[in-house]
């Protein structure tokens, strides 16, 4: 199993395709950082428009923490596409190349093969997120400094103390990892059914795009199905950036407003991952390899 995992990782990281994602993330993050560095004041003024009407806001509003939040908000919707590129290719790509049949005539069980491949996809996903965390969080902290973070939500503003943020990002990245892993498992599952990688990649992306649009649309008829779409839960990481207040409306440091909702979303995603992985194993064990 360990050998198989090593081999899968070796294969993933020997392919140029793997690095597209890293380059894309680096490019997107630096573009956003550059834009905010140059024109961030306008962005902040716009976001603070309503608040500035009644309040004077002083301090480094556009600090590394807020920049990271903006980046994650923009990027985490698109990273699934990059994850898909690898995950949906894992089985179908080998079927297409013809290496799948060679791999499966080796004295390793299919369950081992599929788990090793899934783990490799998971590791790839985590590495991409860690890479993103370094760029989006640490580099932003270096460029923009740190301060309290104003989370400007649609209905209200949350002020997070600068020493109450970092752990939230760790949680957010873990949550994002879960969300991305859900995408990876979907791509992985679909890749079982094709003998070229284009099909499952496009299928996975389509599912994500359609689901995301349904999740985003604020139309009553779609609201009813939102809870059943995994994309709705994928943005649950934002929940870590809202705090509870006490009776005096003071923010309670270290609290999370809807922790149960966030955990529920995480649970739903975990169930998706487990379900898709189990289905993958069951399908793959019985599958006749005709490629």
């Amino acid at each position: 199993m360990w050998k198989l995992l090593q081999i899968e990782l070796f294969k993933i990281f020997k392919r140029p395709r793997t690095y597209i994602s890293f380059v894309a993330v680096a490019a997107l993050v630096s573009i956003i950082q550059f834009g905010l560095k140059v024109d961030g004041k306008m962005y902040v003024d716009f976001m603070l428009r309503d608040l500035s009407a009644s309040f004077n806001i002083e301090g480094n509003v556009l600090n590394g923490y807020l920049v990271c939040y903006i980046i994650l908000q923009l990027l985490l919707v698109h990273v699934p596409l990059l994850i898909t590129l690898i995950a949906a290719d894992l089985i179908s790509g080998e079927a297409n190349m013809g290496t799948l049949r060679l791999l499966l005539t080796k004295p390793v069980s299919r369950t081992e093969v599929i788990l090793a491949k899934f783990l490799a996809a998971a590791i790839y996903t985590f590495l991409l997120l860690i890479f993103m965390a370094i760029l989006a969080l640490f580099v932003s902290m270096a460029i923009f400094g740190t301060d309290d973070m104003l989370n400007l939500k649609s209905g209200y503003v949350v002020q997070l103390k600068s020493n109450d943020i970092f752990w939230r990002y760790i949680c957010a990245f873990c949550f994002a990892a879960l969300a991305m892993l859900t995408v990876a498992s979907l791509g992985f599952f679909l890749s079982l059914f094709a003998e070229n990688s284009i099909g499952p990649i496009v299928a996975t992306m389509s599912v994500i795009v359609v689901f995301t649009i349904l999740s985003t649309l604020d139309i009553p008829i779609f609201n009813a199905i939102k809870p059943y779409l995994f994309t709705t839960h994928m943005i649950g990481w934002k929940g870590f950036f809202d705090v509870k207040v006490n009776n005096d409306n003071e923010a309670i440091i270290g609290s999370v407003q809807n922790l149960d909702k966030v955990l529920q979303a995480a649970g739903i995603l975990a169930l998706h991952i487990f379900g898709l992985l189990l289905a993958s194993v069951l399908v793959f064990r019985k599958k006749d390899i005709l490629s």
Partner: protein
Amino acid sequence: MKKIIFVFLSSLICHFSTSAQDVNSLIKKVRSKLDKVNDYIAEGKMKTDVAFIKAPVGKVKVFYKRPDKFTVKRDKGISILPKSGVSFNMSSVLSGDNYTAIPSGESTVGGDKVKLVKLLPNDDNSDVVLTTLYIDEANLLIKKANTTTRENGTFEMEMSYGKYASYGLPDRVIFAFNTKEYKLPKGVTLEFDTDDTPKHSVKNKKGRVEIIYSSYVINKNISDMEFK
């Protein structure tokens, strides 16, 4: 216009026994007490209670220098302060003689008997339209002030005194003010969830900021740089 109101108010005030003369001398006494303080740096805690803001209690430093330099700074982090409200300061209000004081009767604030005095600025261009002071005559302390401004609506300050009462400096100040609406489109904030309304109703547009002072450093001649 203001003159007319003034005349109207004056006619009302005539019913009360307190004369304008008495009021002016009371104000003078209060002012001379406040004038003992040339400058101060105070440390305290600030609580923000606004329906659409979730802010933690923060440490603040308050700087004052006569006649009208006043600023509140959050020790660390970002400060969200009501416009002009918090920077409104009693000494600044009473500095100069550019107002007309009108006695407006008596009342109680927190169980203490107080005299009501209305101050009308003589300067027609002043942002402040009217200030009502609730003065504890016995201790020469301003317990409460209601101010109406042109730009920033009406706000209220309530003060309680303790250790620094002899300087006329409060231990606790509560600002109550009106806020405008806050709303960002969900498309901008990229929020998908539909049922994410804040616990506190946004309709309650009254905001409160409370500063609890823990210590004052008085008359140590602070630099003007602090107010930049």
